[in-house]
């Protein structure tokens, strides 16, 4: 695969990544947000495969495979399992109205592109628009976490943020060393498990969403 083609594909996938993050932000229903982050992970995996083909680095194929298994299947499945288990209401109650969050999101995307346009020659080290897309997806993930008071949606936002980081990381030169990427994914999985345990424990003792607890102040 030629470099020019790979760059174009990465830009298309970056746009899809951004679009799926906006879907998470716009969704008023828990399952929709979970499916959106799963789809986003599939795009991320395809990006890994494209870069693997373009650079001839087999590690990227491995990472693409792991991404599909862990991020597109395992973690969404875990989230859905927890939702079924605790039978919470599946509506997402936003802290800020969804329209206002989307307006904020537009501002964030513009800002990310302006910021990375100001960078010098080092941009060549990163394929296509992977840097601004990465920054935008990371910040949008944080926006999801800040604007929704529901533990599982906050986890979805966290996964989206991590997808953004991975997207940029893959596009940097030839990606990070394989062992490091595997370690990071392991951390993500363990972290998600611990979060799941905490959500379930609160549910079984006080019957509320853990993100709704607000006793510690001042």
């Amino acid at each position, binding site marked *: 695969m030629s470099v020019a083609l790979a760059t174009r594909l990465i830009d298309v996938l970056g746009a899809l990544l951004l679009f799926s993050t906006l879907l998470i932000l716009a969704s008023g229903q828990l399952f929709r947000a979970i499916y959106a982050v799963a789809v986003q992970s599939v795009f991320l995996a395809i990006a890994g495969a494209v870069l693997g083909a373009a650079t001839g680095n087999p590690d990227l194929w491995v990472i693409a495979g792991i991404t599909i298994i862990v991020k597109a299947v395992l973690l969404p499945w875990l989230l859905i399992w927890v939702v079924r288990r605790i039978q919470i209401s599946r509506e997402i109650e936003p802290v800020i109205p969804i329209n206002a969050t989307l307006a904020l999101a537009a501002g964030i995307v513009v800002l990310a592109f302006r910021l990375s346009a100001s*960078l010098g020659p080092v941009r060549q080290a990163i394929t296509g628009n992977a840097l601004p897309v990465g920054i935008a997806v990371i910040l949008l993930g944080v926006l999801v976490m800040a604007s929704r008071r529901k533990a599982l949606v906050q986890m979805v936002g966290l996964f989206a943020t991590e997808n953004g980081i991975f997207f940029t990381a893959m596009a940097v030169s030839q990606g990070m060393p394989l062992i490091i990427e595997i370690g990071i994914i392991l*951390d993500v999985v363990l972290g998600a498990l611990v979060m799941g345990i905490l959500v379930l424990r609160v549910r079984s003792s006080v019957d509320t969403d853990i993100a709704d607890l607000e006793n510690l102040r001042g």
Partner: protein
Amino acid sequence: MMTSGLLWLTPLLPLAVGLAMLLVRDRRVLTALDLVGSLTVLGLTLAIAGRVVRGGPVSALGVFRADHLTVLFLLLIGLLAVAVSVATVGWMRQELARGQMRAERLRYYYALVHGFVATMLVTVLADNLGILWIAMEGTTITSALLVGFHGDKHGLEAAWKYIIVTTIGISFGLFGTVLVYGAAAHAQGGVLAGAMNWSSIVAIAPRLDPGIIRIGFIFVMVGYGTKAGLAPVHMWLPDAHSQAPTPVSALLSGALIKCALFGIIRFHTIARAACGPQFSQGLLLTFGLVSVVVATPFILAQYDLKRLLGYSSVEHVGIIALGLGFGGRLGTYGALLHVINHGVTKALVFLVAGDAIGRYGTRDMRVIRGLLGIAPMAGTLLLMGVFALAGTPPFSIFISELMVIRAGIAAGRYVILAVFLCMVVTIFAGFIHRVGQMVFGTADASVGREPEARLPMLGLLLLVAAMLLFGVYLPAGLDRVLAHATEIIVG
């Protein structure tokens, strides 16, 4: 070869001890394993310190690396691990008697503590910046379970806030790491072996693109700053430090937030060389001053003893950031010394506070009265520790704070210094007022008056000895390590 083996062994040993603990149910065996495990960690860190002081930095396969900076943090972790283990003996007795801890879950508690210590050791030993990040997230995972260990509503709320806020914060740190790595790979014209290692990046740092390093350092500062408890991203800290079991609070405040600072320092050295000292020092000054200012009103208005200590940690992390931000040899040396001094003192105060809270059954400082009357040792130590935290001579914190202030004068940052000094004086008054009321007076009849146990006191006395010693005399070995570590940062 021997030495690189030592670097691998240091984190692996507590991990193995932790795993072995899962198989043990007997409380006495667990306690013994805990003590032996911690003592071995201290022994290993001392051994590494000896090698580094005699023969310079050592590395193991480009994964781990111990230089003088590492040694400083290693010694802090080792010392605190031992002191906390010894103090845990008494604390655990109290908790079991009060029914706070269930005997059948003890092994999980001890195993998690050792896993937590192991991950902290990896953080400071890592040469590869990716491993540094992985270990940092590992500390979050193990300690979040410990924060919520009691399983009550407040503990779980604190644990949730802790894991969510620090995980998202730390992912900013990962993004910063990716950008710095990208810049390094670009400067080398391709990915060479060890392109992610701090030692090789810092060697080519002057050739790195300053624009991308600047963005990378901002992400790292916000990310690892969250974990270090720097305001305005400290929201998790008072909750987690107040709700965690007391020995864990001591480790969180004493050691963990220093490990996050260690991460910031590593990137600070890269950023200094790539875009000049002004940029990263300015950022450190901003975060440091905001932390001190934000902590002050919360310290004054606080009635919860452990929350008060949590906010005091925000203040002291701010002081360390200020020292690094003022820069120069003096400021950096003072900041590094403050890492040790605050770690030792805060761990001591948390452990004593935990004992008092156990006796009175509350953390409300308006209810705790007359500690000196019913527990003379704990009362004295609490008073000493709090005077030390407030920055009174002859305790060690006074010395390092003075260095930071002198560095500020040398750098000509008078406005920042004026604000900082106002805050420190206010905090001093508030602190002494509150704790004076707790220590003096007469206690209610209902308060537990059991005599103080001797053995757990040994752990506290170890910390008191360090706190007093470093206040009046700095051992030559430590001074040399500090001087070399300063050199690593300011070159």
